[in-house]
């Protein structure tokens, strides 16, 4: 089993750009997202989607399916944001906030103006910042993020744990998906009860394999001269692109200027 996002991160068209450039670009836009309002946020979302889908050649269906995750979360929380209730007695105090509403028992349920406004703002911010994060996770492989963190001086243990976890995740994920397939082939997961039973067996086996793996991997590490640290090296063979750097720089500058102008005129 492979993880789609991880695979794309290694095969996208912007892979050869230095990871620092991509990270800096996306983080700058993320900060900008948090300082501005809906119109600029939407512009950021669209511009980054162009980078991700057109420049990095991430297939659009995959990208938009991923975008449905924050949208789904937004929809889930939407009722809580826009629907409000108030005792009929206090109705007059919120009259200004009511857009549409109906009495329900001794309560009055209504769509709140404030809530709708808030939900709209939230949607723009969520989409824009999600686009920033997706640009990172879809174009920068995790190993390269790790390399950047290493050079930024993150605690060694943290880096080592992330390095090893990343490797083991794929080992265990493969085991889990193999077990899952084999169970399917023997008619498991047919009913809720069987599903729970099969899943219980799978998790138990997975844990046993994990411990077995531990013994074997620690032998292999010893044999490779384990010193107590996990240090690895890699040569850097990135090719910065002037065309992309220029677009990123001037785009960011333009958006920042726009944001400044917005503040100045007090929008």
């Amino acid at each position, binding site marked *: 089993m492979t993880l789609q996002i991880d695979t794309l991160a290694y095969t996208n068209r912007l892979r050869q750009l230095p990871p620092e450039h991509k990270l800096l670009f996306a983080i700058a836009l993320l900060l900008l997202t948090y300082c501005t309002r809906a119109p600029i946020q939407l512009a950021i979302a669209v511009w980054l989607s162009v980078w991700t889908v057109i420049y990095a050649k991430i297939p659009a269906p995959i990208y938009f399916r991923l975008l449905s995750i924050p949208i789904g979360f937004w929809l889930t929380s939407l009722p809580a944001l826009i629907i409000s209730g108030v005792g009929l007695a206090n109705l007059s105090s919120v009259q200004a906030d009511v857009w549409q509403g109906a009495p329900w028992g001794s309560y009055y349920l209504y769509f709140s103006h404030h809530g709708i406004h808030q939900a709209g703002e939230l949607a723009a911010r969520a989409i824009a910042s999600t686009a920033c994060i997706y640009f990172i996770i879809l174009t920068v492989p995790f190993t390269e993020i790790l390399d950047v963190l290493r050079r930024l001086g993150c605690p060694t243990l943290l880096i080592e744990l992330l390095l090893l976890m990343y490797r083991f995740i794929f080992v265990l994920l493969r085991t889990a998906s193999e077990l899952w397939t084999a169970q399917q082939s*023997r008619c498991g997961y047919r009913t809720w009860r069987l599903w729970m039973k099969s899943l219980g067996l799978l998790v138990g*086996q997975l844990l046993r394999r994990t411990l077995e793996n531990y013994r074997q991997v620690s032998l292999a590490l010893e044999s490779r001269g384990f010193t107590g640290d996990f240090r690895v090296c890699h040569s850097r063979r990135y090719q910065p692109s002037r065309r992309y750097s220029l677009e990123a720089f001037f785009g960011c500058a333009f958006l920042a200027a726009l944001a400044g102008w917005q503040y100045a005129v007090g929008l």
Partner: protein
Amino acid sequence: MLLAFEHIDYTYPGSPQPAVQNLTLRLPAGKRCVLLGHNGCGKTTLFLLANGLYKPQRGVIRWQGAPLQYDRASLMALRQHVGLVFQDPEQQLVASSVEEDISYGLCNLGLPDAEVNRKVSEAIAHFNLSELASRPVHHLSLGQKKRVSLADVMVLQPKLLLLDEPTAYLDRLHTRDLMAKLHQIQAAGTTIALSTHDLDLAYCWADWIFVLNEGQLVLEGTPQDVFAQRETLEQIHLGVPLVFDVLDKVADALSKDSQTTEESARHGLPETLRQRILDSFRAG
């Protein structure tokens, strides 16, 4: 035809090239079929497709003439008829004891406990597992695990038994035992198809051989016919069984050897003799 693949395409998500491409292949009932090919030629994918675990992106798979349906109930029915033994028994064995593991498939069919127990103890007797029955699975040797994984599937009495590289990594003794067991299963009326990259095994055991390369069917036929296509087999770096190689070398040596008589010098090795030797390996 028991199972037929018709113009099947399958590409794994995220993979640039297809694992199986425009593949048409028919498994005849009652035969001992072997799928031959390198690692990654699409053998495993084919079996997973046959078991309804993957759905082809193009083409139709037919079980006894009817195209596969991918709803839950049809898949259950299919998987009862088509048993799949995975290459790595580690992948297949999930429960903690041998007995429990054999009962897993039966329990999933929703059979009453008494019947499950009866069938499990039959299978245990049939596969000589009585000594291992209550042993935890992870204490077994590879050969024993393979035997359990075969019992796991056979307890469901499938009509077609698929085995993915059943002899991979087994030593010779265990391989011989396994093949004998498969002979017995086939004699009792189950059609068997196994995949391997062991040419000698294929030659010894098969009635009918399919040669796969890069997701496509390259050759099919009786072992004699298939291995006569030496050139094609060399082209896909598969070669021919060792027996053929040795016999060719013997013939070569005999014809070069000045000490031998006129006749040997002319023919190398007489054709009838060659056939007889080749056949002696087919007994199994």
